């Protein structure tokens, strides 16, 4: 029995392997579907809704939906792109994302998505929530003003016994991702750096390493996010 699946994204023929999600299949075929909470190598969560696509007149998250034969997926349409831009704007107003003073600026996925979708100003009022930061770990700073609760760090940064260094605390609008005080004191150098690279925004910062790349040489200075996936048509 063949394991090859054929379906369409915005009319383009996609050839996928059985078991691949829409996002994975699209990437393998040179089509970029924007993602934020998704991280290669980690199980998808589908919480940020950036990868929303339209399938059978319903909105689905492409990072959690398995590819199936004969699907007709809508992704790069004005309606869906405006929806995605709205999500980015909501994230910008619900935290304190002050790009000029952020160590992650230029390498930040949230900022890069805002650039890609040409966000000039959020359409929603700024909330300016009161949030703190935890710098008690000798290696890391957990800056709550910039956290978008994507859970990538909770899933990726674990010790040998499988315990997460990061965890959710509180609920509802008080929800935050914290670094475990005890584990945070013992975190290895390599894992601390991995934690910073796993964070899509500037919420996990490796200490004493701010602004090490000059403007113009950072990841998203010259090319929009996703342009490495998109093939020249």
């Amino acid at each position: 029995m063949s394991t090859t699946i054929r379906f369409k994204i915005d009319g383009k023929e996609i050839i996928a392997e059985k078991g691949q999600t829409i996002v994975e299949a699209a990437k393998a075929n040179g089509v970029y579907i924007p993602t934020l909470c998704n991280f290669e190598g980690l199980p998808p969560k589908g919480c940020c809704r950036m990868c929303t696509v339209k399938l059978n007149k319903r909105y689905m998250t492409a990072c959690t939906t398995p590819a199936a034969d004969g699907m007709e997926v809508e992704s790069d349409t004005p309606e869906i792109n405006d929806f995605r831009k709205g999500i980015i704007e909501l994230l910008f107003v619900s935290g304190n994302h002050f790009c000029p003073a952020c160590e992650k600026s230029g390498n930040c996925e949230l900022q890069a998505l805002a650039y890609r979708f040409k966000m000039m100003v959020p359409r929603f009022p700024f909330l300016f929530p009161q949030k703190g930061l935890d710098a008690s770990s000798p290696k890391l700073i957990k800056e709550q003003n910039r956290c978008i609760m994507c859970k990538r760090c909770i899933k990726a940064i674990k010790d040998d016994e499988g315990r997460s260094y990061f965890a959710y605390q509180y609920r509802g609008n008080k929800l935050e991702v914290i670094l475990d005080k005890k584990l945070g004191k013992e975190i290895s150098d390599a894992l601390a750096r991995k934690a910073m690279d796993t964070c899509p925004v500037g919420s996990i910062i490796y200490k004493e390493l701010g602004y090490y790349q000059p403007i113009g040489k950072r990841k998203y200075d010259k090319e929009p996010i996703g342009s490495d996936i998109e093939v020249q048509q």
Partner: protein
Amino acid sequence: MEKKIIATTSLAGCFGCHMSFLDIDERILDLIELVEFNKSPIDDIKNFTKQVDIGLIEGGCCNSENIELLKLFRENCNILVSFGECAIMGGLPALRNGIPIEECLQEAYIDGPTVGENKQKILPNNEELPMLLDKVYPCHEIVKIDYFLPGCPPRAELIWNALVALVTGKEMELPYEVVKFD
């Protein structure tokens, strides 16, 4: 073609956006062929002398004088543009937004490590001084703003492209490298 009239101001900003404006370099000579400046720090005209086509606003609103000036610009400008992160989202001054105003003043004038002679522990409170607002507001939360140019500062190229588009009525060019938030 009649020259368009431009006004600019800096509210709670650092004048970095105006400096970036001057980074259009010798193109300012082309600009002066197309536009005439009215109230602006660039020509030092203090008051509006006529209705203006395009107003550029740098900085957000942190005190009552900022609000007054912003409303004056809205009345006197047909098109109002927020340029720079401070005008768009409060920027650096907005870092105080999570701190009560009393604590800010206490730190700045009494407790702060760099405070010199203030033995009577006086906080500035004179009716001639503008009143501080409870927090720093983005300009578009006070008056209607028509266009936004992000950046800290906005790239000179972005300001130039925006002015050319507004003056000539053509669609604005937005290359990827010029729209940046830092």
